[in-house]
């Protein structure tokens, strides 16, 4: 059942220690800072986090990592000029890293939502990131077998929700939101605006409400 919550604390309530948590965003665009802060406040720990990056500067995901709540990162690009909290944890051997090419990350998340048990892709063939993986020659190319990434929870940021849970996003902040919403058992979305049912054009809905469990208006 779709729920509307008044606060981000209520929205993230019940996320258990050890959960696999997808967090939307590419860099800061689309990153649900307020939900991440609430997750930090909730005390949940031992998390596996799926995000394109591994936190930037001293906010959002970076703080979750700093505070030792993240056991493992699944991401494509953890090394940035301001990813010092991840860097420190990684060098100290206090965080596990599964490095995934960005397109494989997206496609594996999409596969989880779409009920695909695995797929072959040329990306990564012949590289360190495909070591030990099954390969097959298909469509004239060597391809690597990749498996879906499922999650317990997705924290995403959208622009507007209606009362049915339909979502639209804004510009490149859309990024991982729609596929993470479909891949997680429970999707929590922070939005800037909530409109009545019928307030979004059905042609323009990006994430149908079927993928959304909890909505909270922020800011």
């Amino acid at each position, binding site marked *: 059942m779709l729920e509307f919550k008044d606060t981000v604390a209520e929205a993230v309530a019940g996320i258990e220690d050890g959960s696999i948590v997808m967090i939307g965003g*590419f*860099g*800061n*665009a*689309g990153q649900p800072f307020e939900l991440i802060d609430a997750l930090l406040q909730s005390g949940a720990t031992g998390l596996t986090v799926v995000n*394109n990056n591994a936190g930037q500067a001293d906010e959002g995901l970076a703080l979750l990592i700093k505070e030792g709540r993240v056991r493992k990162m699944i991401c*494509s*690009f*953890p*090394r*940035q000029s301001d990813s010092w909290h*991840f*860097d420190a944890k*990684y*060098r100290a051997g206090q965080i596990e*890293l599964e*490095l*995934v*090419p*960005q*397109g*494989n*990350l*997206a*496609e594996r*998340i*999409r596969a989880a939502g779409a009920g695909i048990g695995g797929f072959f*892709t*040329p*990306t*990564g*063939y*012949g*590289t*360190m*990131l495909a070591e030990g993986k099954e390969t097959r020659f298909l469509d004239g*190319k*060597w391809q690597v077998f990749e498996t879906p990434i499922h999650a317990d929870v997705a924290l995403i940021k959208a622009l507007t929700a209606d009362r049915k849970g339909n979502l639209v*996003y*804004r*510009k*490149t*902040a*859309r*990024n*991982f*939101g*729609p*596929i993470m919403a479909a891949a997680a058992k429970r999707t929590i979305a922070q939005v800037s605006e909530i409109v009545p049912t019928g307030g979004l054009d059905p042609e323009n809905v*990006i994430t149908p409400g079927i993928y959304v469990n909890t909505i909270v208006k922020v800011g």
Partner: protein
Amino acid sequence: MSEQTTSNLTTAGGAPHGAPQASDAPLGRDDLARLVARDIAPGSFVNLGIGQPTLVSNYLTDEQDITLHTENGMLGMGPVATGDEIDPDLINAGKIPVTELPGASYFHHADSFAIMRGGHLDVCVLGAFQVSAGGDLANWHTGAPDAIPAVGGAMDLATGAKDVYVMMTLLTKDGKPKLVPELTYPATGVGCVTRVYTDQAVFLIAADGVRVRETFGITFEELEGLMEVPLIAG
């Protein structure tokens, strides 16, 4: 995108004036960017990766009608945003604020990478640590044991685009060629690079070997003397 050097072929505003040509001296980064820009067919859909290749966008002409893709979810990306144009929800793959051109479109990450992985981009332009004679690309990892690995969309771009152009200096700071018989750095993709644009020459990775299309400030014979990779003239 931050470092922009000027050279004899570059005009102040970055607008192209006439085609670049083979010169007596090695090409600067902007001259090289202009050369790549000139080689992109009109109407192409292009991804310029991050860093140095993004300079190419300064030299694309309106007549070429090139559409730029950024893997974080957009076709029709415009120039870097400045001043009031800056919008935190509108960034490129290097996380730099950019602008939107008329006719743009937005899509989620799986759809965006489907554009790359499905072979729909005509050209992508990437930087590199090394390219092998067979077109293998190394541009994501130095192989240093203490490095924190980060790959982003490099492998998807390398394997997905119809043509992969590399832009790099021919030599390392130690004077060693980066176009090599076999990679010594970890691979990004195998047999994917089709052209290598360097400050001293443009190389075509062809079925019969590595062809030198043009040279800058160096003769073909001098180039052969510098490199381990067998070269074919013309």
